[in-house]
């Protein structure tokens, strides 16, 4: 296997970022191990659990299913870009209020995925939320509180 590292210039959470990576490294590997953005989690590494959800040019994807080199010239948004300084995003606030988490490993993925939904649909139905989030697995708290938190955040964002 070639050990040659590739120089990649991309944008992460609005900031120009450069890194060196090997071709097989995924975006998730580079976010966590090279850029030390450890909010995106590795659950399954096969695109099934959604714990590594990020957006690539605004499109929701699993960071474990994108090669880091593929992000050259593109724009990545992670959970670390969600809050505005010390001000939590309404989704983050509502997850706290609704206790929509227990261990928290799935939470960054749920938040990124839910934000991507609210970016395209300000007033989703419960069914829409459940289908949209079907690729995010939670193994402790169940989904009802998560769905309620997303619907409540959407309502608050529409009101403001």
């Amino acid at each position: 296997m070639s050990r040659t590292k590739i120089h990649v210039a991309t944008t992460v959470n609005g900031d120009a970022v450069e890194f060196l990576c090997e071709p097989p490294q995924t975006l998730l590997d580079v976010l966590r191990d090279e850029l030390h953005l450890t909010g995106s989690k590795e659950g399954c590494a096969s695109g099934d659990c959604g714990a590594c959800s990020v957006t690539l040019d605004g499109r929701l994807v699993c960071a474990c299913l994108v090669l880091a080199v593929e992000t050259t010239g593109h724009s990545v948004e992670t959970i670390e870009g969600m809050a505005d300084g010390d001000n939590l995003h309404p989704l983050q606030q509502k997850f706290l209020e609704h206790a929509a988490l227990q261990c928290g490993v799935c939470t960054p993925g749920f938040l990124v995925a839910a934000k991507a939904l609210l970016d395209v649909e300000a007033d989703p139905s419960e069914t829409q939320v459940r289908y949209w989030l079907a690729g995010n697995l939670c193994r402790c708290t169940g989904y009802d509180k998560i769905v309620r938190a997303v619907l409540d955040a959407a309502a608050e964002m529409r009101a403001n």
Partner: protein
Amino acid sequence: MQYESPTSIEGVVALLADNAGDIRVLAGGTDLLVQLRAGMVSPDLVVDIKNVRETRSIVPEDGGYRVGAAVSGAELGEHADLKNAWPGVVEAAELIGSTQIQGRASMGGNLCNASPAADTVPALIAAGAVCRVAGPGGERDVPVEEICTGPGKTSLAKGEFVVSIFLPERGERSGDAYLRFIPRTEMDIAVVGAGVNLSLDAAGVCTAASVALGAVAPTAILVPEASAALVGTKVEDANMDAMAAAASAACRPVDDKRGTIEYRTKVAGVMARRACAIALDRARSS
């Protein structure tokens, strides 16, 4: 592993043709990256085709649409005109995986991964879709049903790749549909998939039909006997029963944890019949 991302069709072909070893084409990566991670493949070279414009666009052509091989499921679903013309093809693509997978997964990848259970393939075959294949000898057009030759195997020669998939003009009074059976509501691999595309004349008589099945043979299959059971009829219950029986008769499935031979054979007829009813409804209301 070396990674290359050329910006032209010729650039892709040159890399595929001029390098030895295990070379993989990367479109959305939702199959390839899983295989890489699992150690199922260890390519010497990965050629990413997403920076080739022709693989990433949906372009009207001759009354139909030319869809780039690497266009994502989400992009297909957002293309209102394409969805209106070929709802069965688009719904097959949208059945694949989660929202996250939809952001990347492509019809070209789904086809060339050559899984017998690939959802878009029966829908594309029923639609009469044709692949534009580029290679060292130039470009050639290949019907979708001639691409896969067995599980994980394609008829593509050294240096060739699928650039785009052409969906023909949607005629009057015609419709298509795709259904699959899975034991849950979301995110699973088809036990059986069925795509049906049909056209009616002004009197409601079926003038053309195409029935294709997935996950019941080593590749997705076109079932001419099932199509023939519909053509010349008004697609009444008895005609759909005959079509379903022909679909079941064409099955050569495996026995595995997803379904037995007997079960898959039975369900293939049921899925074909239900897909036919939806396609018929679409044809009558188009």
